[in-house]
């Protein structure tokens, strides 16, 4: 209980911080938003790939499904519902509706996760990867053929409801949810699947259940991330959800360290900021970008964080170490 109060205080502080970030230069602010959204994507994929050990590269599909559904709800039904809530100020009702639609989008993705997961999670390794990739592409083809959401023309006219406070809120929820799952008996069950599925089953772990659980929780947050993305850019386009998007998220989690949530956040940071940081190089930009990826992987094959987490504890110990070192220099 005490921990929960503590967490809520932390959340509030973070949200206040996020609120202040709106005063930043809009360019930085926007990069922050994308970092947040990417972090949600990365952490949720990490649950599937890093902790459960299931090689999935269909994350873009879940992101698209949730994103498009919540965007379609806002565009087609948002006003009606806001009218129903006219007894409260619009600035509040708008956000309540947004919150609900995001969750509906997330749940829809989670549902897809279950539907896809039950049959395909029997597949192993690269075979699973291909099945999830195929699934992501199927979703995209369906969207291309759906005129209600604009098909190939994209889906414009989504109101901009996402802001740094929302992104921070969801990133935090995502982190806490995953963190607590992982550090419970359920989490150990999930991790044991990654370590040795056969042994895990022999220990009484219902591996199918946990795989599908991880898959659908991952899908849920991917859907939320999709919703945040659409309601920030004010436009969704199927070209944003090719398998290259899934690959990018995969890059983030491997770079950050499979099996490390804080690593995912760092990985998301690197891959969000790096392309921006390299803008000055114009033509060489992407060459440097890809070289950096390769070099990072060569010098840290298990990712920046491996499977460790950043915590207050080890930050303090690093600070101490630094103190000692600078002390020596003096």
């Amino acid at each position: 209980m005490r921990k929960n109060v503590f967490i809520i205080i932390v959340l509030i502080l973070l949200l206040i911080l996020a609120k202040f970030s709106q005063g930043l230069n809009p360019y930085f602010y926007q990069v922050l938003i994308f970092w947040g959204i990417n972090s949600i994507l990365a952490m949720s994929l990490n649950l599937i790939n890093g902790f459960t050990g299931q090689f999935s590269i269909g994350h873009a599909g879940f992101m698209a499904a949730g994103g498009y559904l919540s965007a379609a709800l806002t565009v087609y039904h948002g006003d009606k519902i806001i009218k129903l809530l006219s007894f409260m100020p619009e600035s509040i009702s708008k956000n309540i509706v947004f919150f609900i639609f995001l969750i509906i989008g997330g749940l829809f993705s989670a549902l897809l996760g279950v539907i896809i997961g039950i049959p395909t999670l029997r597949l192993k390794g690269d075979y699973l990867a291909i099945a999830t990739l195929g699934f992501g592409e199927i979703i995209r083809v369906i969207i291309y053929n759906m005129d209600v959401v604009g098909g190939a023309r994209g889906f414009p006219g989504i109101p901009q409801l996402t802001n740094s406070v929302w992104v921070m809120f969801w990133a935090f929820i995502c982190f806490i949810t995953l963190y607590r799952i992982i550090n419970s008996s359920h989490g150990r069950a999930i991790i044991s699947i990654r370590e040795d599925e056969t042994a895990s089953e022999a220990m009484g772990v219902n591996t199918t259940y946990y795989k599908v659980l991880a898959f659908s929780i991952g899908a849920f947050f991917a859907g939320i991330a999709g919703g945040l993305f659409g309601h920030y850019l004010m436009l969704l386009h199927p070209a944003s959800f090719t398998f290259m998007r899934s690959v990018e998220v995969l890059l983030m989690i491997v770079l950050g360290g499979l099996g490390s949530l804080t690593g995912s956040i760092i990985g998301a940071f690197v891959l969000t900021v790096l392309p921006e940081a390299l803008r000055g190089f114009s033509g060489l930009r992407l060459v440097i970008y890809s070289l950096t990826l390769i070099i990072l992987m060569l010098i840290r094959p298990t990712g920046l964080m491996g499977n460790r987490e950043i915590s207050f504890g080890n930050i303090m110990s690093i600070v101490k170490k630094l103190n000692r070192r600078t002390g020596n220099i003096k």
Partner: protein
Amino acid sequence: MLENILQQIINGISLGSIYALIALGYTMVYGILRLINFAHGDIYMLGAFIGFFALGSWDMPFAIGLIVAMLLTAIIGILVEKLAYKPLRNAPRISLLITAIGVSFLLENIMVLLVGATPRAFPQKIPTEVYLIGNIIVTNKQIIILSVSIFLMLFLQFVVNKTKIGRAMRAVSQDKEMAQMLGVNIDNVISFTFALGSALAAAGGVLVGMYFNKIEPYMGIMPGLKAFVAAVLGGIGIIPGAMLGGFIMGIAEVLVSAFISSTIRDAIAFIILIVILLVKPTGILGKYMREKV
């Protein structure tokens, strides 16, 4: 109607033989190194460009240009392996995959920088001839590509299964350390594998360039992906499987376009793939090894 179906099947086979051509190299490298060489599609693109310069700028005859492209690409393949993959030989498999993705981006972006992204017409050293069998149309290039891919499959099967270096390749794939203890120089074997895989990719690139008459730095992405899917479908690591997977993908895509709807072609093709995998979880020719516990 019957004619139409036959024509479509021929279309499917010719598309499938292109997927197969690329999938062969993919699957061989995978079979030996358990590496999804994400950059394979881009090596294929490099091969096509080297062929483009060999045939166009240096004006070589087709056969010579093809060989030059294969040789140069093989060297590039070896370099890529030495620089980017070798240091990670004992790292987790996924790190290697990420590096391969990095290499893929790098090759694409370097080529964009060097030659630009505008598609180029591939020098046409072999004029297209159209043959009519009844009302069914086949071109000489389709026949060339089909026969080359069949030939390469047989050739690879032979190399991998019947030669000493092939045995060493398989031994390395199953147990690197043990292979070394028997005197196999695994660096050489892996270099050879990459050289062979890259040369195959280059052959594919040149042939496809000749066939579609268009090359560009991103030309490897989609065929690379499809070829990978084909390789998995047939049972990844299994050489005839890549061929079979390629044909099934090609024919399925064409038949879906022809008789269902071209709009949802890719979706249906992937649904077929997933269904096949659910029935045969290790691909069509994959051995379903229930893990012995």
